[in-house]
């Protein structure tokens, strides 16, 4: 024992220290014993749980970004909750074949210029109002409104007339045949027309879906409770869903591993290794993917106005390494935009460009270049920076020296829309998971009339328009046109696809029956906890 001060040993004695520690522990223990546990409260399951579907329990869903009501009618990264609160007219199966939801059946006119929809007559909104054909008319008109920023607005705008045949039958008249009408029906949520302005501010979200909005706490998440009058008998099984916003990846993984959350689609690919080792968590990779990573090329900047140079860039990139190192291997290295589930997907297109630096150098040489210096814009986020650095490394090997331009999301988006991108940029695009023609008419980077690459070609415009207006019933002709679109995209290389991101679902082993639609709307109609 050491004496600090010879005259006074006033510090707490061992006995008093132990007494204080013991007392504190006792108090803490009593306190905790007397109150609920936040941990068990967050992971409640129905009583008497077994492996069979059972009603009850609250599912906690971890997301990395908050619900954005202003983007309710746009395709955004915050669309997961849409199918929980709302329904759509139809839903695609794995082969892009439409199945009934609020529409029970449909008939196309022979000329493809109208479609007759028969609607369910047993559906009510969360506020008690009955669902009718007027709600479908409102939903289509709502998406035609530019302020809703709906990416399928061009398809909605093709609907030029409505003919009601009673409350539950409706004819949509089209300006011309479109072959992606069911993309619109998969995308278009049916909202209560009377409260739509409250919906886009997050005040009231009134739909016909399996769950009702209890509360939205900005920054924290959404609380949803079971809709007892849901039109599907006995569904949903769950009493509620808590959507928790956890922006930081490590915190999100901890939330899953600790059992606080039981479901997430936002675990970064690179972090999935940690999840893989957890026996209580399961990983599912959807074939539809979660959009694609691409290298955009400004075709008005020399020497990128030369197609040979653009093709050289496409050969220079090691897509497999990029996939492994930046996305943890979850995805599909592909030179074409299509995921495996797309009717336009072919292995030949996927491997059209492989990693071949020798060929890239040869093409550059044939175009009269041995060294190029170009800027590359990318989003200033960790994952996007890693992708940009990977591209920078590959291009350097063939003599293309790239200067990275990290940029925040809003700035990058403005440049994308206003055609203000530098020579090169890398970002992500969606819409390849549905009808292939949707990509070329609804995704701005591919738009035949005006795109970020400033690429125009009469042939591309013609093929895209033909593919879009080809009647949906003529599958063979549509496939031939998809083939042409793919060929033009690959040959012209104004947008060089690199990797289709994996749509990865992480669930606790207690969760069953989770499904996603093609626009990543979460469907928990049949989900239950065991």
């Amino acid at each position: 024992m050491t004496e600090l001060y010879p005259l006074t040993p006033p510090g707490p004695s061992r006995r008093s220290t132990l007494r204080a520690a013991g007392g504190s522990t006792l108090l803490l223990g009593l306190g905790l014993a007397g109150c609920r546990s936040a941990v068990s409260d967050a992971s409640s399951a129905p009583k008497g749980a077994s492996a069979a579907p059972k009603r009850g329990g609250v599912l906690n869903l971890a997301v990395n970004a908050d619900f954005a009501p202003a983007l309710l009618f746009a395709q955004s990264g915050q669309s997961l909750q849409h199918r929980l609160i709302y329904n759509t007219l139809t839903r695609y199966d794995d082969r892009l074949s439409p199945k009934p939801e609020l529409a029970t059946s449909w008939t196309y006119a022979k000329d493809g210029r109208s479609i007759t929809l028969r609607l369910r007559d047993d559906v009510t909104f969360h506020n008690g109002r009955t669902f009718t054909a007027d709600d479908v008319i409102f939903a289509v008109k709502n998406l035609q409104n530019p302020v809703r920023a709906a990416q399928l607005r061009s398809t909605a705008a093709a609907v030029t007339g409505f003919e009601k045949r009673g409350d539950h039958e409706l004819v949509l008249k089209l300006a011309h045949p479109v072959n992606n009408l069911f993309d619109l029906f998969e995308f278009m949520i049916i909202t209560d027309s009377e409260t739509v302005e409250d919906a886009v501010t997050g005040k009231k979200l009134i739909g016909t879906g399996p769950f009702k909005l209890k509360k939205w706490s900005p920054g924290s998440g959404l609380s949803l409770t079971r809709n007892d009058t849901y039109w599907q008998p006995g569904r949903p099984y769950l009493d509620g869903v808590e959507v928790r916003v956890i922006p930081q990846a490590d915190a999100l993984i901890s939330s899953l591993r600790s059992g606080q959350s039981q479901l997430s689609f936002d675990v970064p690919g690179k972090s999935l290794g940690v999840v893989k080792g957890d026996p209580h968590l399961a990983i599912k990779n959807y074939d539809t993917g979660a959009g694609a990573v691409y290298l955009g090329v400004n075709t008005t900047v020399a020497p990128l106005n030369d197609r040979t140079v653009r093709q050289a860039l496409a050969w220079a990139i090691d897509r497999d390494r990029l996939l492994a190192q930046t996305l943890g291997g979850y995805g599909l290295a592909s030179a074409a935009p299509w995921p495996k589930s797309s009717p336009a997907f072919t292995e030949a297109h996927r491997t059209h460009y492989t990693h071949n630096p020798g060929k890239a150098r040869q093409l550059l040489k044939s175009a009269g270049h041995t060294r190029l210096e170009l800027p590359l814009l990318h989003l200033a986020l960790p994952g996007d920076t890693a992708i940009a650095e990977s591209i920078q490394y590959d291009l350097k090997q063939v003599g293309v020296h790239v200067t990275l331009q990290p940029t925040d999301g809003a700035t990058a988006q403005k440049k994308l829309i206003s055609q203000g991108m530098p020579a090169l940029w890398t970002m992500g695009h969606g819409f390849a998971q549905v009808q292939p023609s949707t990509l070329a008419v609804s995704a701005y980077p591919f738009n035949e009339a005006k795109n970020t690459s400033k690429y125009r070609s009469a042939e591309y415009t013609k093929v895209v328009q033909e593919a879009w207006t080809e009647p949906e019933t003529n599958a063979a002709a549509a496939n031939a046109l998809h083939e042409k679109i793919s060929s033009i995209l690959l040959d012209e290389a104004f947008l060089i696809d690199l990797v289709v991101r994996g749509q990865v679902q992480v669930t606790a082993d207690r969760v069953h029956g989770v499904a996603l639609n093609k626009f990543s709307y979460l469907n928990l109609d049949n989900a239950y906890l065991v």
Partner: protein
Amino acid sequence: MRGYLLRRLPSALLVLIAASFVIFAILRLVPGDPATTLAGPDADAATVAAIRDRLGLDAPLLSQYVHWIGSLLTGDLGPSYAIGGRTADLIGDGLGATAELTAAALLFVIVLGTAFGVLGATSRSRWVRTAVRVTTTAALAVPPFVSGVLLVLLFAVVLGVLPPGGRVAFLSAPDLAAQYLVLPALCLALPSAAVLGRYLKDGIERGLAEDYIRTATAAGIAPRRLLWRHTLPNALPPVVTLLGMQVGNLLGGAVLVEAIFAWPGLGQLAEQGLQRRDYPVVQDLLLLLVAVFVLVQLLTDLVYAWLDPRIRWE
């Protein structure tokens, strides 16, 4: 005093007005606006134009500025452009969450700092003193984004006794709220508690070496009474000053800790507002912070003037 206050008020108002100009201008100078954010990456120019029109972003800048100041003066901050909900509600909720976290962290700072200081200075066990020294050094050296992850791993993943993140409002369920608060508050408090503990330890050690302690000991005053009644109170004034300064650090640090523990405070709101170019939210939030700073300065000046009458007559 009233005259002094009246002389100080115009400069405070001037600072606020100048700050409002700077905040408004900087946000407009940064590329991207709420319309492009709302329109999404696949939107066309017509969509962006329609949204700009709806939000009033195509009005002259002066008119937009006047509209903003008008909303502040009437107390109706209006709707958020991109996050959703009312701006006042968003800022009010965020402020409440950050204040709650900071207050809890301050409590931890006081309790842990006092424990570190007293044990470090007075324990008769070398092991305890060494443990305190190592703990305070580690608490100072390890940044919150590391200690936060470690705390979550230990208490949420391995032991499973506390939730890894999120927040429950204190008034709705105090027992659950306290459990959600423990880890982020502890993570935020550790560096400040270590600083406080070290200052307190030095103060106590200096106090114990004073003659009056020797006299009191000779007079037979119990050691515990000597520590808590005579030594500690004399060591506190500089520590209290330091504690005041640490409050600022805690508020700043809360922004980082909020991200680790998914705590929906002002830090998250500011980040979300900036990412989405939500002009009303970011403008009001920044101006609020400037106003708080101006108010604190004003109060400080008033306290000085109250303490020293000469300042009032300058």
